[in-house]
């Protein structure tokens, strides 16, 4: 399907690299179309487990490494408006829920997006993903229905297909594969072992790998089947 032109796209994820595999091709496409993209990244992935063997980082140096990787990834996608929101990895769900909604509301008020991309609440596995998704849905729910931006959500829990069916938004980002590979490679501390295999599959023309890599899939948030009645 054709990627629709937007006024402004707001991307909200908790970890550097959350955008890389499933969304970076779409982001690059928007940038190429001249659509401004704001990427709010809530933490620096301070609690990432991969320190390497032999180790290339410590628990205390990892945040700086991932901050630099995030900046390089934004450069690869062409994002000029990166917001690092200063929360700590694995603590997002323990923050005050209203404060989290306000954080997203402030971003919406400032950037006036026509599209927001985040995770799907209930189907995004990691507690930080879930907390981010809840905050975004709550903030958007407060926008009067006529003015609401579209909400595309990434879902990858094991039960997703059974419960949500197939994603309704599929972006073919074949034209952006180089940028997508560069984005993934920018997050080297998180992706280096995966990328070796991935780049080989792509180079060999592995059709399943290319399909998975070139198609970015989203669910339009189902307001008629909201994850909660009110907040």
């Amino acid at each position: 399907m054709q990627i629709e032109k937007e006024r402004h796209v707001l991307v909200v994820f908790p970890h550097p690299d959350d955008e890389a595999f499933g969304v970076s091709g779409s982001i690059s496409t928007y940038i190429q179309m001249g659509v401004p993209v704001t990427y709010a990244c809530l933490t620096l992935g301070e609690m990432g487990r991969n320190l390497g063997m032999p180790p290339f980082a410590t628990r205390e140096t990892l945040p700086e490494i991932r901050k630099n990787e995030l900046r390089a990834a934004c450069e690869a996608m062409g994002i000029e408006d990166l917001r690092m929101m200063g929360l700590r990895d694995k603590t997002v769900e323990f923050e005050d829920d209203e404060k989290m909604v306000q954080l997203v509301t402030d971003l919406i008020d400032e950037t006036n997006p026509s599209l927001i991309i985040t995770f799907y609440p209930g189907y995004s596995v990691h507690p930080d993903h879930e907390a981010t998704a809840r905050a975004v849905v709550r903030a958007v729910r407060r926008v009067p229905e006529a003015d609401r931006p579209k909400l595309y959500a990434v879902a990858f829990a094991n039960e997703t297909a059974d419960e949500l069916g197939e994603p309704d938004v599929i972006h073919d980002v074949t034209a952006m594969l180089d940028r997508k590979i560069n984005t993934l490679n920018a997050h080297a501390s998180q992706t280096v072992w995966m990328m070796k295999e991935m780049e080989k599959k792509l180079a060999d023309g592995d059709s399943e790998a290319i399909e998975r890599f070139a198609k970015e899939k989203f669910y339009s948030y189902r307001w008629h089947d909201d994850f909660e009645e009110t907040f």
Partner: protein
Amino acid sequence: MEKVNREELQRHIDSFAGKEVYLHLETTNGSYAAHFNEGFFNAGAFIRNVQVRYELGKVVGDSPHRVGLKLPYGWVYAQGITHYEVDEYGRLLMAGLDSSGKLAVALELSETPFAY
């Protein structure tokens, strides 16, 4: 970080004994453990910037080592420590990494608070 040399690590642990130190202690299986292995019971714990003063600290066992700190009214210990370093700020960073380099446990001591 380097692989633990028990005598050297013991000397570093001794050097923090009797001082008011900030502690980071963490155990983790990773947030995706139950996603990749359904039915896996995922448990972990995390404390950061809690102040303690220990009178005795010991590294015990072959690698992976156990490190225990005896407090006036309690204990701290970590199991599975494989690597450590004293960083540029004089902090003692100990970690237990599995064979693929993934952190499973961390125990860190510092005379100044760790970043947020």
